[in-house]
């Protein structure tokens, strides 16, 4: 009697394990579909491309937006046909994990504010000022450093409420990468990464979380992807670029950044485009990269995935523009096609 009391839960557990396993095999993708996982930044445009592609060819692309870090580890583990990340991997890491890497689409990250009496593009911020605001060194809107960049503008004496991301994110990586380039103290302090030890401010989850906080908190500043700022009707700032001019975010200034970046000399396209040198280039421009195994186990699926990306890069430009992304310049697409032809066998 006593023994059977002990035995029962074990039987139940075994039964539970059994059913889990069968559920796992059922969920596995069918042979025809291409699977990918990673960056949330690229998800809207990638799913639009996938829908178009399925309509034309009947091949399905199943993309899970689990985050860049997840995308990298899934493609390394070989559970998906491609991964997508906002933070490029270095050439030696790619070689070690036998992966190829290429960019697919460009977007921008904008500084949004909730400040009465200003309009989109009117408030001007320099890189060091933005870094000092996020470091908690510039505490009020009428700080001399902000006033100096905005002659004639009425700025309140209110405290600046800083909003950042609470989750790890490629958006944060690109933003902090930019701050590290323009501010040596930021580089030495919090540094760059998908999540950093923020000296000040509140954290919102996802772009929608940051956008929500900025809308709710008067006198706040945050950073979101361009599409979120547009769709939410938020006030964004003009940023000073490496050439010294103040530029507002737009498809044009993002492509200027992409065109002025030195892609030809970046091994495995390991290049972060922030602080691009072009005269009219927007300084916080971001790229999403696709990762694929160089020696895929399933050659047919790898080829199917490459066909999909060729379609996306060559025929998906309108779709990308419609969703407030920027398609890659034609010269870059050519470089990618040569690279892929050499790398992925």
């Amino acid at each position, binding site marked *: 009697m006593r023994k059977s009391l002990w035995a*029962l*839960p074990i039987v139940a557990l075994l039964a539970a394990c059994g059913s889990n396993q069968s559920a796992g095999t059922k969920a596995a993708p069918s042979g025809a579909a291409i699977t990918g996982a990673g960056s949330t930044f690229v998800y809207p445009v990638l799913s639009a491309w996938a829908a178009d592609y399925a309509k034309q060819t009947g091949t399905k692309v199943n993309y899970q937006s689990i985050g860049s870090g997840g995308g990298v580890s899934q493609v390394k583990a070989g559970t998906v046909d491609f991964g997508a990340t906002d933070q490029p991997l270095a050439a030696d890491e790619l070689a070690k994990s036998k992966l190829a890497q290429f960019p697919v689409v460009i977007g921008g990250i904008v500084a949004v504010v909730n400040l009465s009496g200003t309009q989109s593009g009117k408030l001007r911020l320099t890189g060091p000022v933005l870094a000092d605001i996020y470091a908690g060194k510039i505490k009020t809107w009428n700080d001399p450093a902000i006033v100096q960049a905005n002659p004639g503008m009425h700025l309140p004496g209110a405290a600046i409420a800083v909003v950042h991301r609470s989750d790890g994110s490629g958006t944060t990586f690109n933003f902090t990468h930019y701050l590290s380039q323009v501010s040596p103290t930021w580089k030495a302090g919090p540094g760059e990464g998908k999540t950093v030890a923020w000296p000040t401010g509140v954290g919102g989850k996802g772009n929608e979380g940051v956008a929500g906080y900025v809308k709710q908190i008067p006198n*706040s500043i945050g950073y979101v992807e361009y599409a979120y700022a547009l769709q939410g009707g938020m006030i964004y700032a003009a940023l000073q670029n490496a050439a010294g001019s103040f530029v507002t975010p737009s498809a044009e200034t993002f492509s200027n950044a992409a065109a002025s970046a030195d892609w030809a000399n970046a091994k495995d396209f390991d290049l972060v485009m922030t602080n691009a040198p072009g005269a009219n280039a927007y300084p916080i421009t971001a790229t999403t990269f696709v990762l694929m195994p160089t020696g895929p186990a399933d050659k047919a699926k790898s080829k199917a995935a490459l066909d999909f990306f060729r379609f996306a890069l060559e025929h998906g430009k309108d779709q990308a523009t419609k969703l407030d992304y920027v398609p890659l310049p034609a010269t870059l697409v050519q470089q990618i096609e040569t690279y892929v032809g050499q790398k992925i066998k």
Partner: protein
Amino acid sequence: MTAYVPIELTRSRSAGADRAFTLFTAGAAWLVLLLLGATALSMAWGGRLAFQTFGLDFITSPDWDAVQGKFGALVPIYGTLVTSAIALIIAFPVSIGIALFLTEIAPRWSRGPIGIAVELLAAIPSIIYGMWGLFVFAPFMGANVEPWLTEHLGDWPILGPLFNGPPIGIGTLTAGIVLGIMIIPFIAAVARDVFAEVPAPLKEAAVALGSTRWEVLTKVTLPYTRSAIIGAIFLGLGRALGETMAVTFVLGNAHDLSASLLMPSNSIAAAIANEFTEADSELYRSSLIALAFLLFVVTLIVLSFAKLLLLRLKRIHGRTL
């Protein structure tokens, strides 16, 4: 807590079914224990890298820096405990008030509708509380309550530092209040049921001796139900400690240690929910799992404390409901 008398069953035709039923119930009970043990073990195992790397510093350090690979759980632990404490301070009097009103004071026709309204509060998903907190309650706190608190209590000797800070509406205090509203129905529902269990003759006797309504409440109802009420409070507290979504929305999710209740902070559950997807280094992931283990430990300590309190009360006051 209700006494029961084991019934000796004689062997009959239904003995086989009876035995199967006993086995089934015992299995269900053991399964819970087993799962609990397995969960705790697997979290401790998953967090071993963090515990090995940082040792005791993991609990005492306020640093949380993924770039440098330094992780300490002090801020999330502090945030979890403080928000839950604020929640209890708010929920306890309100829930007891609701329960007493419904059982003792309210006209009989109104008890049903009010009772259902309280129970409906429990059925609202926590993300709705979070969104309400962010879009409605936080702006209200930032515009009205927090400036008032800073102005009137900000320079008090001991309490002052608690209420000094920028009135942004998002922070420990707001999260605590939202949590408080969320746990009210849990405490109120249990409290109402136990108040209804107080034998009428006891109350009638007190009234016959000339007690006022207040005296009946404080001298008969509350002492009689004391231990069950404490149980209800800790049920609510257990829920507050582990609440994730609602807290994430209004707590501010910043790993800052600050005395002020108006400043953003972090909680264990919120940190895990926020950061797990992009925790891309082994140590980072391990630290988050170690956080989960700590939440387990914190909850266990709080609930054991409740149990001890109940035992002590029983020894002092004898058996109550």
